[in-house]
């Protein structure tokens, strides 16, 4: 049988079930159209000869399974993506956290770390980094290893620098990294206040209390019931008067937690107003 690169609906359900039973990763609450596309993409990129082979490797080969999780989840991210959002962080949200003796920030679904370094740059410029801690988590251990290196493609720096300036950055962006062949290695000072750890939003619990939670462009892959469960997890993990920041196309409106949250500005940021 040749590999046409397409996985059927039934095969999607078989894989979801296998992965849950065998590896304990729960993809049942993922939106199917996107998940099916990711699985088909992985199936054809990895040139499996048949679905049976794809299924067998996913079930039995733990090294391949790591690669499977990385391929199925979306790990596309940038530094200072959506500059207006970072401007809001810089001008309003982070300064308002200055009253806390210690600032805890959770970056849920941090992928390869570009957002964590962006937030750390803002904290440093606001002179808050020394009393902050950024907990950067992801379902996927492979991307966390990359995030911990703090090295990003040099070819992206022009666009990141433009984003940084558009978000209100005043410094020379290149002062934050040193060029190393094709990579830009970011100042290790920034990394000193980051903790990288695996965390699965679907199955893991709250692990601390935060003043700010960022989870941008992760929830779009989840169905409504799973989104609501994750909002409850965030609610349990957020201090009163803490902030929740989502992606441009995500919202807590119509969710069970929305009555106790107030929108801040025009970007997708809400503040917890009563507990």
């Amino acid at each position, binding site marked *: 049988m040749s590999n046409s690169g397409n996985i059927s609906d039934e095969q999607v359900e078989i894989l979801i079930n296998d992965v849950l039973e065998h590896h304990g990763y729960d993809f049942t609450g993922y*939106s199917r*159209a*996107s998940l099916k*596309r*990711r699985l088909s993409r992985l199936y054809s990129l990895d040139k499996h000869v048949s679905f049976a082979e794809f299924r067998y490797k996913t079930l039995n080969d733990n090294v391949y399974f790591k690669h499977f999780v990385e391929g199925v989840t979306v790990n596309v991210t940038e530094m200072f993506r959506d500059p207006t959002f970072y401007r809001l962080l810089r001008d309003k949200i982070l300064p308002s956290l200055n009253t806390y003796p210690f600032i805890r920030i959770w970056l849920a679904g941090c992928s390869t770390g570009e957002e964590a370094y962006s937030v750390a740059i803002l904290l440093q410029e606001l002179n808050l980094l020394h009393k902050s801690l950024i907990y950067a988590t992801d379902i996927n251990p492979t991307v966390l290893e990359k995030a911990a290196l703090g090295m990003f493609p040099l070819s992206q720096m022009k666009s990141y620098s433009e984003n940084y300036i558009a978000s209100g950055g005043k410094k020379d962006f290149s002062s934050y990294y040193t060029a190393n062949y094709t990579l830009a290695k970011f100042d290790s000072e920034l990394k000193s206040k980051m903790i990288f750890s695996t965390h699965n939003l679907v199955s893991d619990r709250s692990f601390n209390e935060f003043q700010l939670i960022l989870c941008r462009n992760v929830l*779009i892959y989840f169905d*409504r019931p799973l*989104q609501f469960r994750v909002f409850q997890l965030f609610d349990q993990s957020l201090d009163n008067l803490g902030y929740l920041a989502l992606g*441009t*196309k995500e919202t807590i409106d119509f969710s069970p937690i929305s009555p106790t949250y107030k929108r801040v500005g025009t970007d997708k940021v809400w503040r917890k107003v009563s507990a």
Partner: protein
Amino acid sequence: MRKNGMLVIGGSAGSLDVLLKVLPEVKRDLDFAIIIVIHRKQGTDSLLTDLLAHRTKLNVKEADEKERILNGTVYIAPSDYHLLIEKDFSFSLDYSEKVNYSRPSIDVTFQSAADAYGDNLVCMLLSGSNSDGVNGLITVRKNGGITIAQNPASAQVSYMPEQAILKANVSSVLNIEDMAAYINSLAKH
């Protein structure tokens, strides 16, 4: 097309002018939904939605994730996300890698619409300078849907509809002035 079907229109350079000519002539009470996927710069969303909303009697809005798809509504794919169609006739958004250097990619929307709507689907590819959408049209046709290309002679940039005609064996080729009447004829009442 039967009731509750879908029309997806994709385009790139030169396609906005076509939409501005065609949409004003489309009648209001359509028994299907219209989805528009056009390549453009990031962050110009509300501009495009406003621009189109002023030219038509139809309700025009940007597609939201998990939103249920309604007949008689024109949905615009938001910039910098892929727009996918779920089998329960709602939207999903996806911020994965660009496809054909594009996000939103027309191929991605055409293909997932073909998966969800099968033969109750019409996909139309307009003016543009790359071939995003052509593979999608092939899938649409394979799943029984109708595929249409703008007549390249009438396109500001002819490459995209030319590729569709060359590679996707489209069901028909339309001139701009015939598009609105065609779209109106898809409505069954």
